[in-house]
């Protein structure tokens, strides 16, 4: 995940805890998460996510010809914390939750990573994410290490009071091992800015001070950063712009189809349209019909118009869409469109070996807004077709970069204008793209491999300079 699921930011009462029981599907929703569908994730496919992350690392290590010591050191987290969090249920009973924090590597700076409240959460999932954060921070050259944390729980089944107690309990267990100069948490799946504020408040109570840099993903009113809501989507477009430049396409001559209509997708549409591009198709979940639909308009979708017929969960009203001359198509039609660019910005593993063949031959670039939207098998096929894939690692890193900006601002207690946030974000994203693109070009590897290579190399170098390995 790109640090933070942007769906949780902004929007109406986005950080009010909500209790919704459902067969949950995370669909990149704007505002509240209504459902989290059990996606065909690595965990549920019985693929151990940590083992997979280690195997990716091994590949990069091999390319880098890392020493055995380095491999040994980097393929395991430096520190892990597992602890119990008792929570009063309100009916006189106490429920004990399990909390995790994994700090994979902090050679490049304090650790950074989300806290996920998710019923499917496992320690191996957390380890994998922590490792991924190490590489991700390194590849976009922000001076942070990688961490991840979580609590296996479904916050939608918990009262607000219990969620607050869970947050405060997590911090009480961890506060001596985290903090602005050690490890900075941020929201992840099913945690939101309100959770961050509770955690901050607990930390500041325990440490007897004000440390807004302890945590990121806060509301702007308590030390959040302007531009955080748009950062992931805008960051993706900055990279897309650079990719188009290198393919010698002008944005105004290109079209896009996008999966998802959450904050990431909306921000992508906004900025991509601003630079002249045309979005002709977008897909999103429909709660009533319990399936996604694609909405197509060949002369270009109007974001403002779409938002008028979209509910707080990011669902476009099917009937009203027809009223504004959109064709309503099956959910997977988004990837079959005759467009230049595809942006999967919803779920993981949406493009697999079984459907990769339906991608239109006109498609030249895929920018991964979601985490791991393309399976390994499909990735190979797409690379063979010569489609440029901007991997999630960097494509959706705008979120973590802006989290870093928030931390810097919070530590200074001096906040930047939105102009400055986006200015810096653009420079960071562009630099990261150029670094990875050039590495891929020189070594004749995919951008995904190059990003991995770059990230691992940076972290290994930091460890070496420190004299650790």
């Amino acid at each position, binding site marked *: 995940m790109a640090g933070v699921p942007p769906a949780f930011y902004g929007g109406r009462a986005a950080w009010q805890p909500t209790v919704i029981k459902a067969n949950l599907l995370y669909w990149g929703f704007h505002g509240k998460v209504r459902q989290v569908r059990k996606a065909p994730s690595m965990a549920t496919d019985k693929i151990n996510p940590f083992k997979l992350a280690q195997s990716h690392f091994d590949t990069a290590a091999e390319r880098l010809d890392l020493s055995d010591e380095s491999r040994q050191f980097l393929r395991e987290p430096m520190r892990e914390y597992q602890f119990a969090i008792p929570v009063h249920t309100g009916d006189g009973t106490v429920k004990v939750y399990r909390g995790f924090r994994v700090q994979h590597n902090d050679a490049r700076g304090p650790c950074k990573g989300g806290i996920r409240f998710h019923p499917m959460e496992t320690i191996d999932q957390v380890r994998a994410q922590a490792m991924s954060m190490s590489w991700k921070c390194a590849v976009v050259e922000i001076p942070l290490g990688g961490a991840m944390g979580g609590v296996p729980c479904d916050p939608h089944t918990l009262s607000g009071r219990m969620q607050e107690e869970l947050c405060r309990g997590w911090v009480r267990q961890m506060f001596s091992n985290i903090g602005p100069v050690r490890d900075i948490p941020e929201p992840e799946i099913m945690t939101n800015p309100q959770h961050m504020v509770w955690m901050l408040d607990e930390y500041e109570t325990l440490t007897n001070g004000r440390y807004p840099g302890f945590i990121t993903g806060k509301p702007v009113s308590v030390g959040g950063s302007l531009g955080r809501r748009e950062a992931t989507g805008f960051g993706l477009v900055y990279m897309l712009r650079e990719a188009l*430049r290198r393919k010698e396409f002008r944005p105004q001559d290109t079209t896009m189809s996008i999966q998802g209509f959450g904050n990431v997708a909306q921000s992508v549409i906004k900025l991509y349209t601003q630079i002249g591009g045309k979005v002709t198709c977008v897909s999103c979940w429909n709660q009533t019909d319990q399936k996604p639909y694609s909405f197509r308009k060949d002369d270009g979708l109007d974001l403002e118009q779409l938002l008028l017929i979209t509910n707080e969960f990011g669902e476009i009203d099917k009937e009203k869409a027809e009223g504004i001359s959109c064709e309503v198509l099956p959910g997977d039609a988004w990837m079959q469109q005759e467009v230049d660019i595809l942006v999967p910005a919803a779920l993981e593993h949406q493009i697999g070996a079984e459907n990769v063949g339906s991608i239109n031959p006109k498609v030249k670039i895929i920018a991964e807004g979601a985490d791991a939207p393309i399976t390994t098998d499909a990735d190979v096929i797409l690379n063979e077709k010569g489609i440029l894939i901007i991997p999630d690692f960097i494509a959706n890193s705008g979120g973590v970069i802006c989290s870093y900006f928030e931390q810097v601002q919070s530590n200074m207690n001096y906040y930047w204008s939105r102009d400055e946030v986006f200015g810096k974000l653009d420079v960071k994203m562009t630099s990261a793209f150029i670094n990875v693109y050039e590495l891929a070009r020189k070594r004749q590897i995919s951008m995904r491999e190059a990003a991995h290579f770059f990230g691992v190399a940076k972290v290994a170098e930091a460890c070496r300079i420190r004299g650790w390995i």
Partner: protein
Amino acid sequence: MTEKHIKISSEQLPAFDRKFFDHLEIATCIGSGFIGGKASGLVVMRDTLAEHFPTGTFDSMTANIPRFTVIATDIFDRFMQQNQLYDVAMSDASDDVIAHAFQEAELPAEMVGDLMALSQAIHTPLAVRSSSLLEDAMYEPFAGVYETKMIPNNQTSKESRFQVLVEAIKFVYASVFFKGARQYMKALGKSQTEEKMAVIIQEVIGRRFDDRFYPHLSGVARSYNFYPMGRAGAEDGVVELALGLGKTIVDGGLAWSYSPSFPRLMPVVGSMGELLKTTQTSFWAVNMGEPPEYNPIAETEYLTGAGLKQAESDGVLKNLASTYRPQDDRLVTGIGPDGPRVMTFAPILADNVLPLNDLVKALLRRCEAVAGSEVEIEFAVTLDTSTGLTAHLGFLQMRPMVVSKEQVTVAAEEFSDDRVLAASDKALGNGITSDIEDIVYVMPDSFEAKHTRTIARELGIINQQLIEAGRKYLLIGYGRWGSSDPWLGIPVIWSHISGSAAIIEATLPTMNVDLSQGSHFFHNLTSFKICYIMVKHTAAPAIDWQWLENQKEESRAQFVRHVHLENPLTIKVDGRTGRGVILK
């Protein structure tokens, strides 16, 4: 006269490259859409200079366009829309309120990264200049209507440089909606909503001397001179030179004016003392020193004024100045002897230590060919004495001029007509007007130079009222119209007098200075075909003050009177002879 329309879109320029100074391109673009008139002129001249003025053409002088990038008009559109700025911009809010609202607004996210990269890469002063879409019409001058901001760009952190750059861009955007610009547009019969602004970010030509950054000299040259003096004719053109930044010239300060056909010809002055009074004694530079008071909505926020002593200690006067020798009441070229320095540019113009005049003449000829009309150009020059004397001319702007050649004859006999309100053989413009029924004049009896700022304000109020009423008027005042020195004339800006159809620039015994000959508002006068008549108080016939006094008064301020006539005036100016007459 043939006129050529130059309109260039962003597609004809390469996209901004984040290396800026390292990149080979002189001109790049951020955004899409149009790049405005000023930038279009620069792009055309970029190619012209490369083709016709390669290094070596003028021995010790080189010429090129300072490197620049243009923020195209689509960014302006988006900035206005996404921040919903049209509400405040089109309201009656004062300039500072509008400017503040623009400062609070956010630039479109797709371009701030380029600005950040630019701030990261560049540490030398930048000029943030307007390049409006309506300037593309080329026949409508916008000189001085929109703001330009110079920034030192030498702050230690890139964030600070970025912040200042962003503020400057927003300030230039806001200036589209400042009162002066709105009145100007109204006079043109256009709405502010038709205007779109591109912004040029350009390296400033100059050198750093202590805390000042400035070019050795700046210049404005026009290929047609409505105000020819002495042997020079209108087609000989005119050049104004000033030490330091060109703001001195653009603002109508004291500059050295000469005909490029007669560069050694001194201005006609009554005495050496008068010459000393009417030559430049101070100059503008970019302030590289202590940060000034924070004021992002002031054009001069990062500018500083300095005197000739500082320039001399900076070592820049050697090839620019003369020295006055009081013992024999004459000027000596250069700064060898002690004595007051006088900005005559004699070493260059008279002794020809640099072929500047030849280069300027050649540039004017070439620009005329490109534009298909008479032109005005702006430039800045830095000198280098490290290996002999060499110089570099940075070409800053080219504007086609509007020169009417309609045939009007004013015979000398008409001066003795009983109906003459005022007459002069020093008149500018060309044509006949016979529908002016209003006269706004500064009352001669109460006029004193110390009140000129108040007079400017009073004129501005009446001007506004008459514009709103849709009535053109004849304006009469004393000293140099638009002078930045209130002791040399009334320091109006164009918006104070923009509704006038004819202007008399007169002298009084108490304000007996060399008249500006309309130079401060040259483009405005020619564009709006405003007759500009200079009347010395010693001339015959004199202005008929008595008749004016007897006309029906519509309003009266402390120093300014507005009268409404029963019958319209007839105003005639013969552009060929420079003779003009106003008949009651």
